[in-house]
């Protein structure tokens, strides 16, 4: 049972892999967590994690630069229904298009565009950076057992763009920052978090543990 964290040159994956290893140990998950840029390992993986930091277009180019990676991910996730988690720009890449600096195509697994955050209160700073709470719009197995809402646990965000999902039911949770911001999307075996679970302490480790046990 392999959890593949896809490495396509988008920054450091140490903390992501360490967080997954820790969550695996504490949740009794019996499998290995591997950081890989090998499409064959991704194709055969039982669970796939797509991280991502930086700009949308750069990440897309990075993903394209690994021959066969998108095909392998698509096969595992869309054809064979393997659980998938996108993190930050890895979540944004699920969209139809990204509009950061230039217009570039996403994976189009979740319909919608990645657009700039525009808080209604002009004194609010962008990037939306720091700890914020989640307001789930639907019950989702990845949030099982996690206290959410105003008095719930916090997630760490750092982003200037958000995935405005076209289909309301694809939005799992929002957060509040001068208006509602999409915090989590998903459908079927696909999920994505705008925040960084690997940097979100209690909430993050619980969410990762939920992902490792998720049977969509």
């Amino acid at each position, binding site marked *: 049972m392999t959890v593949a964290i896809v490495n396509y040159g988008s920054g*450091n994956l140490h*903390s992501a892999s360490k967080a997954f290893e820790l969550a695996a140990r504490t949740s009794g998950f019996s499998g290995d967590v591997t950081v890989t840029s090998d499409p064959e390992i991704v194709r055969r993986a039982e669970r796939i994690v797509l991280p991502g*930091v930086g700009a949308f277009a750069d990440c897309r180019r990075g993903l394209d630069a690994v021959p066969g990676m998108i095909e392998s991910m698509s096969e595992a996730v869309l054809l064979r229904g393997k659980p998938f988690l996108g993190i930050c720009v890895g979540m944004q890449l699920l969209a139809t298009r990204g509009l950061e600096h230039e217009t570039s195509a996403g994976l189009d697994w979740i319909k919608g565009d990645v657009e700039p955050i525009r808080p209604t209160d002009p004194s609010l*700073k962008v990037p939306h950076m720091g700890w914020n709470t989640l307001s789930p719009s639907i019950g989702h197995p990845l949030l099982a057992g996690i206290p959410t809402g105003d008095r719930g646990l916090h997630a760490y965000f750092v982003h200037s763009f958000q995935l405005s999902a076209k289909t309301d039911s694809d939005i799992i949770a929002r957060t509040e920052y001068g208006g509602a911001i999409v915090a989590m999307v998903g459908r079927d075996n696909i999920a994505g978090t705008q925040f960084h679970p*690997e940097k*979100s*302490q209690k909430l993050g480790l619980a969410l990762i543990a939920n992902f490792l046990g998720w049977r969509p």
Partner: protein
Amino acid sequence: MLKFRVIPCLDVKDGRVVKGINFVDLRDAGDPVESAVAYDAAGADELCFLDITASHENRGTILDVVQRTAEACFMQLTVGGGVRTIEDIRKLLLAGADKVSIMTAAVQDRNFVREAAEKFGSQCIVVAIDAKQTQPGKWEVFTHGGRKPTGIDAVTYAEEVVSLGAGEILLTSMDRDGTRIGFDIPLTRSIADSVAVPLIASGGVGNLDHLVEGVRDGHATAVLAASIFHFGEFTIRQAKEHMVAAGLPMRMD
């Protein structure tokens, strides 16, 4: 609702913490990783390492420290000090830093900010500004620990680096640094109100009211302090409880 952040800062020299923390029983108070883990457990919202290694040969030591820290704790880590090239930033990010703060190199060449932000994304480029008051309502950017004037107006400079792609400003008042009499509020507010990105206030914290003032009066979105935490005078928890009591939203998970 987004919470304000409390950020302890550790000075690291040749891979060791200078003036290390002593509020918990650490096996090795000079070990940055142990200190980072302690702050993580104490509820710090982020952590900052300032590398003050002087000799060029030892500059690599910070990379090892960052890598071991990123493996041991899951909190946002900003690393600054002596960052001069795109390659320096790349190495720190690859070692596990979430954000890199640049100072002198940005003063010397503004294009460095643009280049860094384009390469790695604004979210990980912090521009550190050391400022000193020159006349009422006027502050100048200084480098070299406040010794070297640049002739550059601090507010104008902050606006410029943000327009070039800085994702956050780390502002230190050199007049207040080490004084323990509180942030330079007019300076903090002047810059916080003129840029659209988050601002971390630094320099001068001596008590918990100062942290409240930095956010409430200075309009900072985060406050950075060193000595009040390192010596166990106040815990991170006490600091955050004090800020909550003053009506500021804080993460108390």
